[in-house]
């Protein structure tokens, strides 16, 4: 299967080829997985499943993939593969995980089903868990946070998009001790695009209702708070707005450290964390039109942008981060983590650099 949808460098080719399937292929992140994997030099997608579009072409659901020679099959007829990607709604994978491991050596789940390390957290934040024995086996997918534990991982749990944007923004401050469980207050405001609501949508997602909004859809108590606390060890005050974008998550984190912090301290922390990361960019008041992280600049890519500014009068540091919620916040993160898990070049299949200029992402 091949299609010219993803520009990748040829130097990643020539290695071992892994077979892969995408379960839940008609959803938005399922489509993004198929786009990325179609251009991946070390992956051959042999199956994509869909209960609603069985026997239809992938291009029927994803018009950007019309050249792909692949039809959706029934999810009850899973074929044996090396890597199974599950892009199903929350709650599905935890019930299917035994079946997944019957046919695949590596399972990569994009839902919330394995991303929290404790079963009790699922009782508190979700609707419980039916396969808690797998939580210990799961590795959180975000390589910038968990790269050392990904090689050889059999169950990879994709991060949530809002949590990913927030974690990428705050992690350097945690690493440097500017923030910690007992240090500093953090208020996070995330703006997200409509694709975060999934392909099935609902009344609030219809175009007349969604268009033009700046809607606080989760003023408090968003589930991703649990993920941020689990992986950064921080309790954050977290609010999410639905805004008029299709793709993108933009997190603004207001940080109030206990002690003084200089611009040099901040640059040291962020350069130390991200200067060698292949997908992270520091964008912090430099030149040009885009002086701080901007979802438009990363739309369609696996890049994350992070920046900051110091507000000494208010003893505040404001941190910005921007990702494509379906890429760095989901499918791109999953492919990146899979590359690390399988020992492939980290950037394989993820070479698309975005568009400029571009309209609403």
């Amino acid at each position, binding site marked *: 299967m091949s299609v010219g949808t993803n520009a990748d460098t040829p130097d990643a080719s020539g290695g071992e080829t892994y077979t892969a399937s995408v379960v839940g292929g008609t959803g938005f992140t399922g489509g993004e997985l198929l786009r990325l994997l179609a251009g991946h030099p070390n992956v051959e997608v042999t199956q994509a499943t869909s209960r609603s579009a069985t026997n239809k072409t992938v291009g029927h659901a994803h018009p950007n993939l019309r050249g792909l020679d692949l039809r959706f099959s029934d999810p009850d007829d899973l074929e044996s593969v090396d890597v199974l990607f599950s892009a199903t709604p929350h709650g599905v994978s935890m019930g299917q995980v035994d079946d997944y491991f019957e046919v695949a050596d590596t399972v990569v789940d994009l839902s919330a089903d394995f991303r929290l390390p404790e079963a009790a957290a699922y009782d508190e934040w979700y609707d419980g868990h039916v396969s808690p024995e797998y939580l210990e086996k799961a590795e959180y997918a975000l390589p910038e946070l968990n790269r050392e534990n990904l090689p050889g991982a059999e169950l990879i749990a994709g991060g949530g998009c809002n949590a990913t944007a927030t974690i990428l923004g705050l992690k350097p401050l945690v690493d440097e001790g500017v923030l910690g469980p007992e240090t500093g207050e953090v208020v996070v405001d995330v703006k997200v695009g409509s694709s975060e609501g999934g392909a099935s949508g609902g009344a609030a997602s219809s175009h007349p209702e969604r268009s033009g909004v700046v809607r606080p859809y989760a003023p408090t108590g968003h589930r991703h708070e649990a993920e941020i606390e689990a992986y950064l060890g921080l309790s954050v005050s977290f609010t999410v707005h639905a805004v008029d974008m299709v793709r993108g998550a933009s997190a603004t984190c207001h940080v109030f450290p206990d002690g003084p912090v200089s611009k040099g301290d901040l640059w040291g922390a962020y350069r130390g964390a991200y*200067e060698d990361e292949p997908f992270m960019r*520091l964008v912090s*008041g*430099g*030149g*040009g039109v885009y002086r701080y992280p901007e979802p438009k600049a990363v739309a369609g890519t696996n890049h994350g942008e992070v920046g900051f500014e110091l507000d000494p009068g208010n003893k505040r540091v404001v941190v910005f981060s921007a990702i494509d919620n379906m890429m760095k916040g989901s499918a791109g993160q999953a492919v990146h983590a899979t590359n690390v898990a399988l020992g492939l070049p980290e950037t394989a299949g993820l070479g698309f650099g975005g568009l400029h200029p571009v309209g609403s992402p």
Partner: protein
Amino acid sequence: MSQAECVECGADVSLHDDLEAGEIIDCATCGAELEVIDVSPPVLDRAPELEEDWGE
């Protein structure tokens, strides 16, 4: 090709061979615009900010 330290983020900035005083370059790490104050040895400083109303 010589290098100088970015005064904004501390990263090394690669300098081209025919560098001239007064030239404005940008840092590949943080994007800051930097003015070449001297060329031998190379000295950089923050370039004057473009005065523009950014919607304020």
